[in-house]
């Protein structure tokens, strides 16, 4: 497999001779409440030229500006193939995300990005893919899932394991509910605490590993979720004999500048904003403070 290529986050800016700190004005075009705390926002960059040049990889993130409040790093949920629009799945948990939840369709925010190294989409082609997400980790993974969906024939078996605390907290539940019955995706959902509507699995996402078959020679694993989840899922993937450099994961850190300068997102000797947020397990093992 090829080396995990670094994506030059500043390329979009250089093409437009931009200042990396300058956000583009973007309009909220749709707001879809997903759970009690998470909402899917769809944005459209107002400047036509910028919008035409805008491109990204699944796993990259944007700096979202609410002018007068500040900026917050949010991973992109839509697939790169969805041109002209950017979807961010946002949890209402801070000042910026709180202010965003007060806004309505048509309101203007600022966006800059995309930043960081996303999932190695091109390198994943031709392989089986095992995607595991928990909680809000589904947000960045959805971009990858949808992108794989768009080019489904380029991949082998695609297995998706999703976990949440309860059915109400499953992001994009409607879409994934339907996908459970598709033949080209092996999607299994599980919750810790079921309710009367639930007909899926019950228990931690790691339990689902008993139900799947993995070809270790040809599979790439991807993990997205809360920090506590990584260690246990990696253990399961290693039990299935996935090589350490074929397990990818996305790290959540406090990226402020997005270009490896402010130091807020340092993970050991690397930066989540330019070296990550996606790292493979081998890299993560060699990073202090990674897990």
């Amino acid at each position, binding site marked *: 497999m090829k080396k995990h290529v670094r994506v030059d986050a500043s390329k979009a800016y250089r093409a437009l001779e931009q200042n990396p*700190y300058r956000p583009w004005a973007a309009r909220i075009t749709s707001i879809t409440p997903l759970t009690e705390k998470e909402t899917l926002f769809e944005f459209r960059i107002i400047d036509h030229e910028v919008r035409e040049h805008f491109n990204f990889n699944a796993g990259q993130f944007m700096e979202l500006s609410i002018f007068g409040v500040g900026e917050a790093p949010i991973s992109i949920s839509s697939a790169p193939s969805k041109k002209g629009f950017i979807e961010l799945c946002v949890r209402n948990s801070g000042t910026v995300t709180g202010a965003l939840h007060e806004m309505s369709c048509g309101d203007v925010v600022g966006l800059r990005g995309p930043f960081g190294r996303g999932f190695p989409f091109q390198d994943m082609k031709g392989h089986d893919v095992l995607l595991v997400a928990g909680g809000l980790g589904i947000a960045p993974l959805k971009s990858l899932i949808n992108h794989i969906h768009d080019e489904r024939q380029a991949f082998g078996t695609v297995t998706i394991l999703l976990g949440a605390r309860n059915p109400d907290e499953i992001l994009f539940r409607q879409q994934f509910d339907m996908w459970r019955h598709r033949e080209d995706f092996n999607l299994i959902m599980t919750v810790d605490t079921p309710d009367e509507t639930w007909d899926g699995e019950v228990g931690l996402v790691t339990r689902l590993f008993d139900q799947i078959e993995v070809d270790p020679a040809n599979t790439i694993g991807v993990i997205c979720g809360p920090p506590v989840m990584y260690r246990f899922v990696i253990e399961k993937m290693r039990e299935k004999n996935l090589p350490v450099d074929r397990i990818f994961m996305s790290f959540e850190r406090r990226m402020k500048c997005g270009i490896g300068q402010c130091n807020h997102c340092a993970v050991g000797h690397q930066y989540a904003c*330019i070296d990550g947020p996606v790292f493979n397990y081998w890299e993560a093992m060699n990073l202090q403070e990674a897990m």
Partner: protein
Amino acid sequence: MFFRVLKKDQIPTFIEGLAVDYEVIAPIAKGLAYVFAPVTCGARVVLDYPTTIVPPTAYFLKPKEALLRYNSADGEVVETVKDDRKRILFGVHPCDLNAILMTDKVFLGDYEDPYYKARRESTLIVGVSCTPRQSCVCHMFGANEVLQGYDLYLTDIGDAYFVQCSSVEGAQLLDTLVETREATAEDTRALQKHVARFRQTLGEAPDTTQIPLLFDARYDEELWEEIGSRCLSCGACSAVCPTCYCFDIVDELDANGVTGSRVRCWDSCLNSQFAEVAGGHDFRPTRASRVRHRFYHKFWAYPARYGKTMCVGCGRCYTACKVGINPSRVVAALQGDVGEGEA
């Protein structure tokens, strides 16, 4: 190399001549200490100063600066006019010059910072030799000499300065504004004497062989708990450090509630919420983890990326830290026995 000899009594004339076309930033006395400040009067400049409170890097990465002006109603963003006025940093010590070269790597590397770049490119630097103080450890990480980064470099050879000219603009200013003469063999011998005295004053450098390796291997050991238990998380070390460059970006709103500025300000990785993410998870919740991270960045992370230890041994943190945490002690702690608690 282009060498000149400049009499010390010519310095005020030189500075006042420079001040006609440039903003001259030079060390002046402030109370019992020294600071870099704009000067127009040459007599105020003290070139044999021990060190300054705040390093001259503050003239490139400002403690606080507006990056943008925004209008929250329509999302209109206007970039702040870049500060590119002609400026001269006069009298920069070797350690601080090396520090500027280190921050250059960060702000003028793969991702250029337009604000830093504008200031850096419009600023000339005149370096000056120094007499090491007790807390100076520039030789610990090889920052006791400079090979580049200055336009002019003055070495004290008694009643005159031995001047190295490395840029056309610097050489022209020197030739136009003051009287100099060609360096003679006698001047070179005086230079040799200065170098010998400088080496003697510094003494032997602490051995820092394999510090990154020791740092990584002893990352989880108790010595950090010990150092962390003393650290006050006050951030004084990072505020005076010439190589520290952590910053925060915040929005300030005008009184009208609609327009405002996006401001960049100095931050410190020792601050308690530095690595906290939304929702409250803090990746470095303890003082020990934060002070360790600060040194890890200097001794491991920066060298891993840029090939050089990010400490110039200027000694500012040796006096700023009220509990005696400094690079020499960290190096000694990493090399020494953990059980002794001698950090």
